[in-house]
């Protein structure tokens, strides 16, 4: 899912002035990469939760896999980039990329946090598939 999201975001954010990094949002010298390289979306590793969706008497339960990918984007809080609104729309649109057609539920939400003069968008994608 992370790879597909990176591909979708790279296409959708193309003209917004916001970039996408293939790197994980690791921390360098106590500073996360997304703070060091602002105006770039960083996606964390996938988290997966497998659970029984429909129990069956023969034990072959239908399973649901929920995949969660968290992303981060930092921008200058004082001088927001001109393409920010379009970029946020693109970030939401990425969940509907054709490649996720097998996911019967797709969520995206983002929250904002202002630290000093930086606005950090924390993005969360959730996809649910039948396994």
């Amino acid at each position, binding site marked *: 899912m992370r790879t597909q999201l990176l591909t979708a975001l790279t296409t959708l954010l193309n003209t917004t002035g916001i970039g996408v990094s293939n790197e994980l949002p690791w921390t360098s010298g106590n500073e996360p990469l997304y703070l060091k390289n602002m105006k770039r979306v960083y996606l964390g590793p996938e988290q997966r939760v497998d659970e029984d969706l*429909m*129990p*069956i*008497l*023969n*034990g*072959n339960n*239908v399973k649901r896999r929920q995949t969660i990918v968290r992303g981060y984007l930092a921008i200058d809080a004082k001088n927001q980039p001109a393409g920010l609104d379009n970029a946020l729309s693109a970030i939401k649109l990425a969940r509907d990329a054709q490649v996720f057609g097998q996911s*019967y*539920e797709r969520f995206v939400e983002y929250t904002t946090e202002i630290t000093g003069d930086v606005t950090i968008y924390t993005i969360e994608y959730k996809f649910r598939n*039948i396994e």
Partner: protein
Amino acid sequence: MSYINVSGAGEFATLSIALDTGMTTPLAIPALQEIGISNSNGVFRFKTLNSTSESAVLTPATNQVTLSVIVDGTAMFGDGAGDTTAVDKGLFKISNDKVRIYFVIAMGGGSGNTVSGTGFLSGLTMSVTPDQPLWTSPLTIEVDGNYLIND
């Protein structure tokens, strides 16, 4: 105590149906979510002047097996090899054609108990929703006559 615990591997409750009493090429229902066996005796109640309580006599029972399944393409629509056996026809055609079936329910749990009988399929209602994207259906076997209980 001899509780029948069906949760262990190889101890599952199963339902098989066939189109003949010899259970030739039975269709083992593959994705059985729930099964219920009901034997509901009818009751006729009457009052007499010499008693402070009603009396009762039993009338013939309504016997039904209720179940719900996740739709398996082959089990529901048949194997495409004709219409001779239950496996060939599948549940939908058996219900639609109103064909008599013979069934065996293995109670599981290592008990060896079985309940069998004959009847007709009814109550097939396949449904699917965006939130539950697998077809499921309830199903009822309207039992014709008594159960045969193997203890």
